[in-house]
């Protein structure tokens, strides 16, 4: 009983004084997690109440966090649950056929194959006797998705895989599925049964680790941990099971470019469509050890793709290291990047934290002023100095389409918001919204370490844990000040996934993106050193070039030929300059930029 009380007391303290979205969630969902925690504490403390079983207690605590509809903020169940994932041996994805949403089997493990045609392409119609659409909706109510699109996506994902760190084992031991086989055509529906199975990671000190960020990257995480665990486990369980299907007859495609980070960039290739040849790059996760390696690999991969246009597909990306996502933006635009702002809740705990730890000391002054200003949130600052978001500059100069869905979360939300707020290109969404997670999340162990109060924040029983959104995100540009949490990033254009998308490697989706790219002009601006004081400049679809030595103007000239030579005078300034930077214009609009290191 003491263990249960300790968990509830810890939750109560941190939800009230550290959880940054509490005011928003109270307002948006009319919930009162503090009162529910107090009632639970009273139940545990009252001598006249029957003792609460572990299952009932976990159910209640999970329910209190689930009502926040925040995938960042969660109670993490103790071992052996948190290193265990329940799964069914197949995967179902939603798409639209003849104007109606259907659910198609997209992957089947060997143990899931059935003689009756339960295979890739089968259409699921009922789940334990309930029409599948209704079953997904019921499941969605139990999940923590925020907006309607996110709830549906989370509900569907949880139909076949559930990390037991954030949800109790399914009540049912098996599911009965009614499905229509892909072939022969007009097949009658059939029924089959699947046992739920569990996958247990190797026990040990690493059994429940999720984030890969090393060192101080742990303070800069923005990730749906549950989604990431499920992605990692699914990748392992379905290894060797193709989800791609046969080559499409609609367009040919080149071979994939091998990535040095295949887990992060599982697909990188040129796609040859009826609208032209464009690059396609899937970014499956931002959960990386360091942003440096990640950004360098992105630069390398896009340099190998068609310059006529790029499709960046971040569907299903549940986030990771925030720096990794935000620092990518500069590679895709000639304009400087303004990073999103992070805000703490104004409270005695956040004041204590920011007063004690210099790396978050910048937030202290505004939190201290809260008594006078009466504001709920601190002033906002980026996580890194602004120069860190602009230290590389543009590396891909063609037009870009970003593909999102409702499973995009946190760092991916931040990346998509930056993409939209800096007008980098078009966002093509397969759902009406992204997952809408706008915060920096800290694990309990890190919070306890920072608070230096082992009496009040001891290690939790059974390796249980909490995760809390501690710094909320607000957007920049035209959306300056708008929170990302719950509101998400609405795509500029929608594409309903088709059966061909699910079964034939996103063929219709890529064609749709290609149709958008075809209408966008492309350009090229490159500079190479020719001699100690001369540089050869190559241009395409650019009519004017400005040159700078560091930030000082050097030259400004009309482009008359596709290549020309730029001479840097041997002045004192030129001798000390570190970078030659070029900006390319078309019809007075800045359309490309490049830079070369000097010295």
């Amino acid at each position, binding site marked *: 009983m003491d263990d249960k009380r300790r968990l509830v007391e810890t939750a109560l303290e941190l939800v009230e004084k550290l959880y940054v979205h509490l005011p928003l969630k109270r307002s948006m969902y009319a919930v009162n997690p503090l009162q529910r925690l107090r009632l639970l504490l009273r139940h545990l403390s009252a001598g006249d109440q029957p003792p609460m079983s572990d*299952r009932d207690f*976990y159910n209640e605590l999970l329910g209190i966090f689930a009502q926040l509809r925040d995938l960042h903020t969660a109670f993490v169940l103790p071992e*052996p*649950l948190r*290193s*265990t994932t*329940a799964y069914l041996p197949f995967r179902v994805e939603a798409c639209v056929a003849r104007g109606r949403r259907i659910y198609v089997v997209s992957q089947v493990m060997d143990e899931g194959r059935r003689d009756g045609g339960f295979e890739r392409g089968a259409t699921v119609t009922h789940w334990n006797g309930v029409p599948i659409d209704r079953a997904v909706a019921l499941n969605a109510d139990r999940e923590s998705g925020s907006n309607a699109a996110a709830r549906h996506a989370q509900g569907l994902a949880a139909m076949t895989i559930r990390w037991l760190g954030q949800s109790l*084992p399914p009540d049912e*031991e098996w599911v009965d599925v009614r499905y229509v086989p892909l072939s022969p055509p007009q097949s009658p529906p059939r029924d089959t049964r699947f*046992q*739920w*199975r*569990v*996958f*247990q*990671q*190797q026990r*040990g*000190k*690493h*059994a429940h*680790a*999720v*984030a*890969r*960020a*090393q*060192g*101080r990257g*742990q*303070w800069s995480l923005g990730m749906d941990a549950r989604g990431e665990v499920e992605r*990692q*486990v699914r990748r*392992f*369980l379905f290894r060797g099971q193709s989800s791609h299907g046969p080559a499409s007859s609609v367009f040919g495609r080149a071979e994939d470019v091998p990535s040095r980070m295949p887990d992060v960039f599982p697909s990188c290739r040129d796609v040859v469509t009826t609208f032209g040849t464009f690059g396609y790059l899937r970014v499956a996760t931002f959960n*990386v*050890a*360091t*942003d*440096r390696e990640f*950004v360098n690999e992105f630069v390398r991969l896009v340099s190998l793709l068609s310059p006529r246009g790029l499709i960046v597909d971040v569907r299903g990306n549940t986030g990771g290291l925030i*720096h990794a996502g935000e*620092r990518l933006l500069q590679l895709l635009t000639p304009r400087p990047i303004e990073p999103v702002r992070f805000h703490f809740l104004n409270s005695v705990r956040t004041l204590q934290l920011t007063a004690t*730890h*210099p*790396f*978050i*000391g*910048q*937030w202290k002054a505004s939190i201290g002023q809260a008594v006078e200003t009466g504001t709920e949130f601190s002033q906002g*600052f980026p*996580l*890194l*100095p602004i120069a*860190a*978001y602009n*230290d590389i500059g543009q590396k891909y100069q063609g037009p870009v389409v970003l593909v999102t869905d409702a499973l995009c979360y946190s760092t991916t939300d931040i990346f998509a918001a930056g993409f939209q707020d800096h007008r980098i290109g078009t966002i093509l969404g397969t759902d009406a919204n992204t997952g809408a997670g706008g915060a920096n999340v800290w694990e309990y*162990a*890190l919070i306890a*370490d920072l608070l230096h109060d082992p009496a009040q924040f001891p290690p939790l029983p059974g390796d249980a844990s909490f995760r809390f959104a501690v710094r909320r995100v607000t957007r920049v540009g035209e959306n300056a000040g708008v929170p990302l949490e719950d509101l998400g990033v609405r795509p500029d254009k929608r594409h309903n996934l088709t059966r061909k998308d699910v079964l034939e490697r996103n063929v219709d989706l890529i064609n749709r993106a290609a149709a958008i790219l075809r209408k966008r002009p492309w350009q090229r601006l490159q500079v190479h050193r020719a001699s100690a004081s001369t540089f050869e400049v190559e241009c395409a679809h650019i009519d004017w070039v400005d040159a700078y030595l560091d930030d000082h103007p050097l030259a400004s000239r009309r482009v008359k030929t596709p290549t020309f030579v730029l001479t840097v005078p041997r002045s004192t300034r030129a001798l000390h300059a570190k970078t030659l930077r070029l900006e390319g214009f078309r019809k007075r609009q800045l359309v490309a930029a490049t830079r070369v290191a000097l010295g």
Partner: protein
Amino acid sequence: MAAPREKAGSKKSQSKQKPAKKGSSKRQAPRDVPAVPTPKEIERSIDRGKTLLLSEFVKRVKL
């Protein structure tokens, strides 16, 4: 005073930080954060995992 922040992706930012001297006006590094498993260790714990029926698992954990 502006808070010290690491330079993104720098090698220095990934190495152990020495505590700043008392009274130093230079940027102070935050305390070392707890050690975390490396990506390879995480992958290994998944690669060495095992599967069993949910019903067996539930019996074992006695929920």
